């Protein structure tokens, strides 16, 4: 079933250990040997017939920072992911992992019964159950569901604009951070676009991150044809979640070999990358109102792995009155579902420490970041209000239309 796994290129590793200097996991725990050892190093010891003995491989958080710094272009994360999949295939996955990676299945239900569910999530007995039976750390706040989904809002939203653009909003925006989706639509409309939502499922990155290639492939096989159709109708695709974007642009083609995924990748853009393109062609609506806020911006790992610089920061710096600092820290430590797991919570928090300290030094009123995972973690670490940058941009364009949401 894994015949289509790409050939790894550990041969080009020159053992320089640059990756060891950036790995957030090996920085905080001796349990993970670090990218050089776990990836190209261990690869030389793995024989196809041998059972997996690299239990620590499950601690790779999937941030891709090692890939970014490797001077030889070794796809270390990819090697780790393949080894992780093999390890978990053999060892078996806890029900917890299935639950965490299939939240898209109960998103609708979550929204429908949000008032009950959200309160339940706070309940001590429920927390005890979630921790001891499921293995999800009780110190982690489970994301609250909103009573009305983004899709529901969008249906009742009159569409307008000259040019069509497809929006891949992602599960979390649909059921847990509807406001980000609204802001995205509003900003795009303010730039003359008519937004439409191509049929879409979870991008599959939670499954992939947990080494479930089949689960991830299933999602990709549903999304790619639908996205291709949108492209064939003449639209580009934008995403507001950098993790969904990383998945669609990189992993669909590179790791999962989904037919048509190269074409999809070519026409899929990060929201702010797209806005920056508009800026560069002189078409960005930049009639911004003054926003006297002290904010700090954090670049998520999966934004960095897209290799497009920091477009959100560039655009936000156009807003008058907005004082915005870039947070000098690496991975936030949540790693998608990683930080929810009881056995990984401490590691996740330890990784986040640097980020928390960097934020503390900047003393911002709000923190902005493009990834929902990072937003959850920064809220958890600092208690500050954390938004998607598009929400601030929307406010600068259309102040007063909606109240920002966020905790």
């Amino acid at each position, binding site marked *: 079933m894994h015949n289509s796994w790409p050939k790894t290129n*550990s*041969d*080009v*590793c*020159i*053992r*320089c250990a640059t990756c060891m200097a950036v790995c957030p996991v090996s920085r905080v725990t*001796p*349990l*993970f*040997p670090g990218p*050089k*050892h776990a990836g*190209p*190093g*261990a*690869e*030389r*010891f*793995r*024989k*196809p*017939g*041998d*059972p997996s*003995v*690299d239990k*620590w491989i499950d601690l790779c958080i999937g941030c891709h920072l090692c890939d970014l710094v490797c*001077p*030889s272009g070794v796809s270390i994360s990819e090697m780790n992911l393949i080894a992780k999949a093999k390890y978990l295939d053999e060892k078996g996955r806890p029900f917890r992992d299935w639950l965490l990676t299939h939240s898209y299945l109960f998103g609708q239900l979550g929204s429908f019964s949000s008032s009950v569910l959200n309160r339940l999530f706070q309940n001590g007995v429920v927390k005890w159950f979630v921790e001891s039976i499921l293995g999800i750390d009780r110190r982690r706040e489970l994301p609250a569901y909103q009573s009305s989904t983004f899709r529901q809002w969008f249906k009742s939203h009159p569409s307008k604009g000259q040019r069509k653009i497809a929006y891949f909003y992602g599960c979390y925006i649909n059921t847990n951070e509807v406001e980000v989706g609204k802001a995205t639509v509003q900003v795009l409309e303010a730039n003359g676009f008519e937004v439409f939502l191509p049929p879409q499922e979870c991008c599959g990155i939670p499954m992939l991150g947990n080494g479930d290639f089949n689960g991830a492939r299933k999602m990709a096989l549903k999304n790619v044809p639908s996205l291709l159709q949108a492209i064939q109708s003449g639209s580009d695709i934008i995403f507001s979640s950098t993790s969904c974007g990383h998945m669609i642009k990189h992993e669909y083609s590179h790791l999962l070999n989904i037919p048509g995924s190269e074409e999809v990748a070519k026409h899929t853009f990060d929201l702010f990358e797209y806005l920056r393109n508009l800026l560069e062609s002189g078409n960005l609506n930049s009639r911004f109102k003054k926003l006297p806020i002290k904010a700090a911006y954090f670049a998520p790992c999966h934004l960095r792995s897209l290799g497009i610089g920091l477009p959100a920061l560039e655009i936000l710096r156009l807003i008058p009155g907005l004082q915005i600092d870039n947070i000098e820290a690496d991975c936030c430590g949540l790693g998608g579902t990683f930080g929810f797991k009881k056995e990984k919570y401490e590691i996740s928090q330890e990784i986040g420490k640097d980020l928390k300290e960097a934020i503390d030094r900047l003393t911002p009123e709000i923190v902005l970041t493009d990834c929902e995972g990072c937003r959850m973690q920064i809220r958890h670490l600092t208690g500050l209000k954390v938004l998607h940058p598009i929400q601030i941009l929307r406010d600068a364009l259309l102040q007063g239309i909606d109240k920002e949401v966020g905790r």
Partner: protein
Amino acid sequence: MKLQTEILIIGGGATGAGILRDLSLRGIPSLLIEKGDFLSGASGRNHGLFHSGGRYVVSDPEAARECIAENRILRKIAPHCIEETDGFFVSLPEDGPDFRDRFIQACKDANVPAHLLSRDEALSLEPGLTPTLLSAVKVPDGAIDPFELVLSNAKDAETYGGKFLLHTGVTSLLMEENKVKTVLAKDLLHGEEYQIEASHIINATGAWADEFLKLAGLRVAMALSKGSMLITNQRLTHRVINRCRPPSDGDIIVPNHTVSILGTTSVRLEDAENFEVTPQEVSRLIRETSRMIPAIEEARFIRAYAGIRPLFQSEEKGDDRAISRGFVLIDHGKKDGIKNLITITGGKLVTYRLMAEKTSDLLCQKMGIHAPCSTHLKPLPGAGKLSGLKDRLKTLGKSETLCDCELVRKEEVEEVLKEGKLKNLQDILHRTRLAKGTCQGGFCVYRLLGILNESGLAEGDSNNILKGFLEERWKGIRPILWGSAVKEEELMEGIYKGLFNL
């Protein structure tokens, strides 16, 4: 210093160590001297192919029979030195089926188990093989760790009273009428001189057999045949891959620990000391082996090295590969009238035990004692320990790792140091997998020197030791210097010139 022993063995290769063990088990006091470390000659410089005999079935059925018989014995007595991978003899379209059919028949005749696999069967087992292959014949080849093998022999010999002196070379022989009276030897590192008296002397010096005999005024016709090999960064296959054709250049690919070893060439040499791998040999090896495993064209190499086959030459001349790989045991009493001197040479690593047995039998006969051989029955020390790749991978992160590439732990090296008798860096490198991986010791050897310094075990100036190591390392890397290897060397140059100011 004066030393006395019943038997003096010259040469610490597989043969010498095997004889030391055999004699020690028979209760005959023996001393081995070796001018370098164990395995400094051909025993430590081969591709580690644990022959089934397949390679010789057609050209030299006698050698093939010896190989398969010893193959069966070593699986029992030295399982920790052997990886039972099996081997394929792969027929390509240009090889045709004729040789293959002869090969299968010859295997049958020589009692080498052979099983014909179709193209698809072979490809499903070894997906790296070229899809154009015709068929493959499976034989019980394997991979052998010559270091582990020889060191286990020496260790067991010691347990039974055998003695050895390393880094001790013979300087001259004092002759008396029809025998060698005294062997003069010298510790080549510290200069101590020995006068060794022995009732019998065994010349197990391999490629140096003729050179040694010159000291006694004798000659033996040896052909020195250089075989060059390349080491890849990773295992390319999980079985030994041979080309099913008459033995030629570049027709063997052996998986060995984390790497694969591609071999070999055959070049006649005059001198056993000065030789190197030439660019022509490298190109030839890649060209030939990639016909069987196309990925070799893209593979990363980490080292090239060469060894010298000590081939006993019969009268007629011809291709060195046509010279028998069987061994030769010469009683110089019968042949030359020097009654206490025996030469044992030729042979294969895999037949080392048989060579030791025959030599010891001859000695016993000459000494008039009855002491049967037991090396084929008694397992070597360490036979119970597992040393597979996954066992090594399991240790990752468990303790301080000295060599990142081969996952050699600090304790492992300290263990080796504790056993003592190590005189230089290369001795340690022979006894562990240290410096045998991707960076070829670039990152671990300076760490090792730190440990040696701390423990006061480093002899001489660390900078000089490091320089000596780098010179040796460079010899192996220069022939394969392209692609990632160049990058690696740039990094190493930065480390050693920039940081260590060497």
